[in-house]
């Protein structure tokens, strides 16, 4: 059993195994996202109050889910790296950070653009946007710390500590921002009126959420593979991999 566990931790094994699944993952992601896009943009009914700007939800909600999920994936990888000292976990964490930050950025951006026709302003300090902004700072902190020390291993370890403390703090941050916001704003327009969303609006959202998760997985695995190639670029298996590719082209 430990053999399997150690195999799991081998970058080369990961590279070779993930290579078989990655194209399928990409394919599925593209299918789901395309379906969700077409459905949400063209076929879902518009919202009674917000009109067509409501369609931004199909990007805003999935990306905010992934922003949060991505942080937990990153922190979990960090924890695994600290506890079991597995290099691959370090690589997962390094790769997850910028992808998660990108989704956080997308969530904030789409939220802001959505705000203009809805509330007349691009930026509004409501609970969700504010929490998401703080999440972006958390990501930035981890990303910068990952490059900061002289040795990559130390940087990864420091970033893992930060990510873990951040994990403890995320519920605190969300709850406190929520509390703060309800103190100052009696009535709010929530972005997802999920219980009152018509199924015709809700179903494409499900498709997009699935598509985004698939996309995240594919992008993460892709990034991990390239980082593995970079770290192992002097080994024979990587050299052969590229050299034989070049020969094929010739």
């Amino acid at each position, binding site marked *: 059993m430990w053999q399997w566990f150690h195999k799991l931790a081998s970058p080369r094994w990961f590279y070779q195994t993930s290579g078989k699944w990655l194209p399928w993952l990409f394919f599925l992601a593209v299918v789901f996202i395309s379906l969700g896009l077409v459905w949400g943009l063209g076929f879902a009914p*518009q919202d009674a109050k917000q009109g*067509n700007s409501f369609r931004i939800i199909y990007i805003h909600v999935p990306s905010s889910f992934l922003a949060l999920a991505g942080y937990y994936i990153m922190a979990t990888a960090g924890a695994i790296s600290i506890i079991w000292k597995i290099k691959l976990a370090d690589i997962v964490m390094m790769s997850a950070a910028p992808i998660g930050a990108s989704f956080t950025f997308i969530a904030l951006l789409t939220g802001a653009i959505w705000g203009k026709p809805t509330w007349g302003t691009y930026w509004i300090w409501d609970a969700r946007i504010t929490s998401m902004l703080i999440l972006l700072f958390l990501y930035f902190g981890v990303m910068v710390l990952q490059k900061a020390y002289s040795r990559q291993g130390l940087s990864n370890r420091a970033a893992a500590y930060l990510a873990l403390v951040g994990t403890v703090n995320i519920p605190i941050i969300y709850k406190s921002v929520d509390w703060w916001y309800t103190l100052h704003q009696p009535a709010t327009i929530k972005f997802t009126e999920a219980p009152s969303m018509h199924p015709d609006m809700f179903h494409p959202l499900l498709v997009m959420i699935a598509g985004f998760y698939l996309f995240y997985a594919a992008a993460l695995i892709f990034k991990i593979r390239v980082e593995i190639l970079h770290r192992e670029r002097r080994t024979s298996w990587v050299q052969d991999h*590229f050299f034989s590719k070049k020969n094929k082209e010739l």
Partner: protein
Amino acid sequence: MFQFGSLSDFIYMAGHGQYVWAAYFISLSVMILVLAEPFFRRKNIAKEINKQRHYDPIKKL
């Protein structure tokens, strides 16, 4: 069924078109960038490896 009468209706979206399309365009561009970065990085690694290979013709295949 399709919610819009014509293509121009689809683009205009009753006045909200600029917001919807801007949001979608920027988001999808970021997602493509997320994929592009490792893609180009891998190309660089390949280039670097193949350059090294030419300096070491003795290296075993």
